């Protein structure tokens, strides 16, 4: 398939780099201020080298990537809240041209799920968004395979940064601020970690899962989620949990129509108490008990592999 990749951050770059490995051709690549377009396939290595040297992928305007010749648009620009722009507009533009859309950007399906689905119905094309929940882990495709009808609840650890901080605090008996600084040095936490440690990122993923499980009966947005973060958890809380054979994890839950994210006590040896940046999702199935999916929930190549798996699921246009 011919792919237009919007966004040249960690995920967009990896998609462009790995596309050939999956048998696809990148015909356009754009960052926020420029684009490079070639109907026969762009030189990905050259575009990324230009990006590193000059800060832009090419000399065309970003809009040129949207207008390019492609079968599927990969939307990997940063997640935005509220109206989810400009990501939502990119989805709209592709669907109006009857081009498929694969999202890595959580905004459109977390904040405007019904709008995205309505546009998809009007289009001859499809929207897939496996990469928006749990990086490399096949969460949404597993839900689709089981049929949302037969999944009664989902819960899990969906933010590697928060999980890294909690695991380090418990293992080393260190305070939150200390471990956060360490995580920032390691590149596990961003300079502004708010999105991760206050639970917003995990909540967006849960909202997306809630939308998929609701099958259109109800639309969820971030406002419907009850969210608490981990920044006010002192080391003494982890210590008390440990004395009782437990640990604390930032758990996101979708059950009985509610979306909740917050610190929870989890038995130390339970499947949910993954350590480090690892993520896990548990699905409660109607006929098959509990299903655990665990793996890397973030990272360029990891998330790109989920994007490219979605591209592989798309029907030929």
């Amino acid at each position, binding site marked *: 398939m011919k792919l237009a990749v919007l966004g040249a951050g960690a995920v967009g770059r990896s998609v462009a780099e790995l596309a050939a490995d999956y048998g696809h051709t990148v015909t356009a690549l754009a960052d926020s201020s420029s684009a490079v377009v070639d109907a026969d396939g762009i030189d990905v290595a050259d575009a990324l080298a230009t990006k590193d040297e000059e800060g832009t992928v090419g000399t065309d305007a970003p809009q040129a990537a949207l207008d390019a010749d492609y079968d599927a648009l990969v939307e990997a620009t940063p997640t935005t809240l509220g109206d989810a722009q400009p990501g939502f507009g990119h989805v709209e533009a592709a669907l109006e041209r009857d081009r498929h859309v694969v999202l890595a950007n959580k905004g459109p399906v977390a904040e405007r799920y019904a709008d995205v689905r309505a546009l998809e119905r009007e289009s001859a094309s499809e929207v897939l968004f496996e990469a928006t929940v749990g990086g490399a882990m096949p969460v949404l495709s597993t839900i689709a395979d089981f049929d949302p009808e037969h999944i009664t609840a989902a819960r899990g650890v969906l933010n590697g940064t928060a999980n890294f901080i909690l695991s380090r605090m418990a293992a080393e008996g260190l305070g939150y601020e200390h471990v956060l600084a360490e995580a920032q040095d390691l590149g596990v936490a961003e300079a502004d970690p708010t999105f991760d440690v206050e639970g917003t990122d995990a909540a967006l993923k849960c909202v997306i899962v809630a939308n998929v499980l609701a099958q259109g009966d109800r639309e969820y947005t971030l406002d419907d989620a009850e969210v608490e973060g981990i920044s006010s958890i002192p080391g003494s809380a982890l210590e008390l949990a440990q004395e009782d054979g437990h640990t604390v994890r930032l758990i996101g*839950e979708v059950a009985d129509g509610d979306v909740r994210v917050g610190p*929870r006590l*989890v038995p130390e040896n339970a499947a949910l108490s993954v350590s480090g940046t690892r993520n896990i999702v548990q699905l409660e199935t109607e006929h098959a008990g509990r299903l655990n999916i665990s793996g890397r929930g973030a990272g360029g190549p990891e998330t790109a592999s989920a994007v490219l798996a979605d591209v592989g699921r798309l029907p030929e246009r």
Partner: protein
Amino acid sequence: MSDSQDEVRAYTVRLELVDEPGELLRALHPIADNGGNLLSIFHERGNITPRGHIPVEVDLEATPERFDGIVEALRDADFNIIQAGAERYGEALTIVLSGHLVNTDLSHTLSHIQEATEATVTDLALSAPEGTEDVSSARLRLATEEGKADDALAAVREVATEKDLTVVEPLTAGGDA
């Protein structure tokens, strides 16, 4: 993928039996039939609960999944389960509170939780490594009547909001692993 669902663990189940012949045997069937391995049975024949029932404590081994089946089967057979090993079969729950616990009157916090929900604080552990003037944490074990765990949690959240405390809740029902 994790295999911890297949690990056999030890559980304790406390039941209240009606004082009638054959009740104990009837209570053991759902355990054996659902793959539980009985370890010990403590039958307090002389000890009657306020409701006139006889408390029985059963230790058993099972995988978490089979244990869920055992609890369900006991409920289906109309046994009153006072406490089951894992966190929240409605009747006992553990939470951790953090914040300025001592400055905000910990004993008031505890009595508020008990009064609002008729829950009983059965265990309390306090950790204040920075001294009681600073942020500290408390682990509380609450015993509630069957089906009242959510009310107890709501009361905990309410008093926590009022006093600007952080609550670490147990996983909700079914989320024991």
